């Protein structure tokens, strides 16, 4: 039995499991403490489930935007930019015009910042994943890149695709995991014709927001919209069993696995 170099930790933060998998040699445990302390701070500040978070206080009118922390103002400003970029399909007020819920962006943004903590500590080969959205950097081992499976939207124990990458953020939005939780902010209904959207690119906050927006658009509009993304690539699984991807979507060099069962799940 050989053991991998580096450090690994899975912790439940921000309401989801967060995986930190560092593959560099000689990194101290301190850096993991710093990463998870940061994520716990994000949760305390942004959670809509905590009465005393700044977002909850903003929503109750106890706190004005001017009095909020700079990180809160930064996140809300980015949410507004992303709302405009996505024709309103990513909306921190999607649930109700009176309630702010930036959690769709906060998760990716928090992981982007956590990656910066790792970089500052000298980490160059790592994966950070929060509830299925992730940032990958460097290599999993000297001989191989990070291999990421994209969850099959209909079969829990299968993946629909495998991608190989070195420096990338990967975010997936879909309705399969906890029922329809994404709604089209325009029609106020769950999207139709689409099972999942995966977006890859340099920034996890943006990739996550784009995936949520494209999923909310549904199978009719999402292909056209994702084809126009700049600097980001997308893979869409449509309800009719078609998988559409932008020409630059990352591939796997060894796509043919002996365990492939083509066609499963296609109606």
């Amino acid at each position, binding site marked *: 039995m050989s053991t991998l170099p580096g450090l690994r930790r899975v912790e439940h933060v921000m309401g989801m499991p967060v995986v930190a998998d560092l593959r560099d040699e000689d990194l101290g445990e301190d850096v993991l403490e710093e990463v998870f302390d940061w994520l716990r701070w994000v949760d305390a500040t942004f959670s809509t489930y905590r009465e005393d978070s700044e977002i909850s206080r903003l929503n109750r009118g106890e706190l004005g935007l001017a009095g909020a922390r700079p990180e809160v103002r930064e996140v809300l400003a980015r949410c507004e930019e992303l709302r405009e970029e996505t024709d309103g399909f990513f909306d921190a007020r999607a649930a109700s015009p009176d309630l702010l819920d930036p959690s769709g962006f906060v998760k990716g943004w928090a992981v982007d910042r956590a990656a910066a903590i790792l970089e500052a500590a000298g980490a160059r080969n790592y994966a950070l994943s929060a509830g299925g959205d992730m940032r990958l950097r460097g290599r999993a081992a000297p001989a191989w890149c990070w291999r990421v499976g994209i969850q099959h939207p209909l079969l829990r124990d299968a993946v629909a695709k495998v991608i190989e990458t070195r420096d990338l953020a990967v975010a997936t939005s879909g309705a399969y995991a906890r029922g329809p939780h994404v709604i089209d902010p325009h029609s106020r209904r769950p999207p139709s014709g689409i099972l999942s959207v995966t977006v890859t690119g340099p920034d996890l906050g943006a990739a996550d927001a784009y995936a949520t927006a494209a999923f909310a658009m549904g199978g009719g509009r999402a292909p056209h919209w994702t084809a126009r993304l700049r600097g980001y690539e997308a893979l869409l699984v449509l309800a009719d069993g078609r*998988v559409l991807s932008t020409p630059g979507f990352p591939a796997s060099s060894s796509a043919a696995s002996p365990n492939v069962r083509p066609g499963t799940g296609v109606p």
Partner: protein
Amino acid sequence: MRRALTATVAAAALAVPAGNAAATALAQSKPKAKPKRRVVTVTKRVAGSEVYAGRWGPLRVTLVVKRITTIVGAHRTVKRTIVGLDVPVYPDHTDRSVFINQQALPLLEQEALQAHYSPNVDLISGATDTSMAFVESLQSALLKARSI
């Protein structure tokens, strides 16, 4: 479903050896003469006509269509699936977003949804699951699998 049934029968046979007789009887009671079943699969490449896309040059879309004909007795079922899409004559322009804006044609690659079991991967990207048990267990199993 079928797999679960077989497993149950096998377990019963193991637990009670006398049950073998019952299992044999069950197998013999199945209808013997099944209507003959024939499956014909044809995969064809279908090219669209060449269309001149303004200043972006000519464009042609090719589809790969798989036709599966299942014949059982006099009954015939035909199922067609698009298994590939290709644009062999590609507009000579690097700015695909400009092209798409003008033509409203997403130049997306297409394939059929596949299921890969026990893939050799480090992590899984998927929608957030609040039950978490599955993702958490899978992620930790994946982490472990790579240290063996």
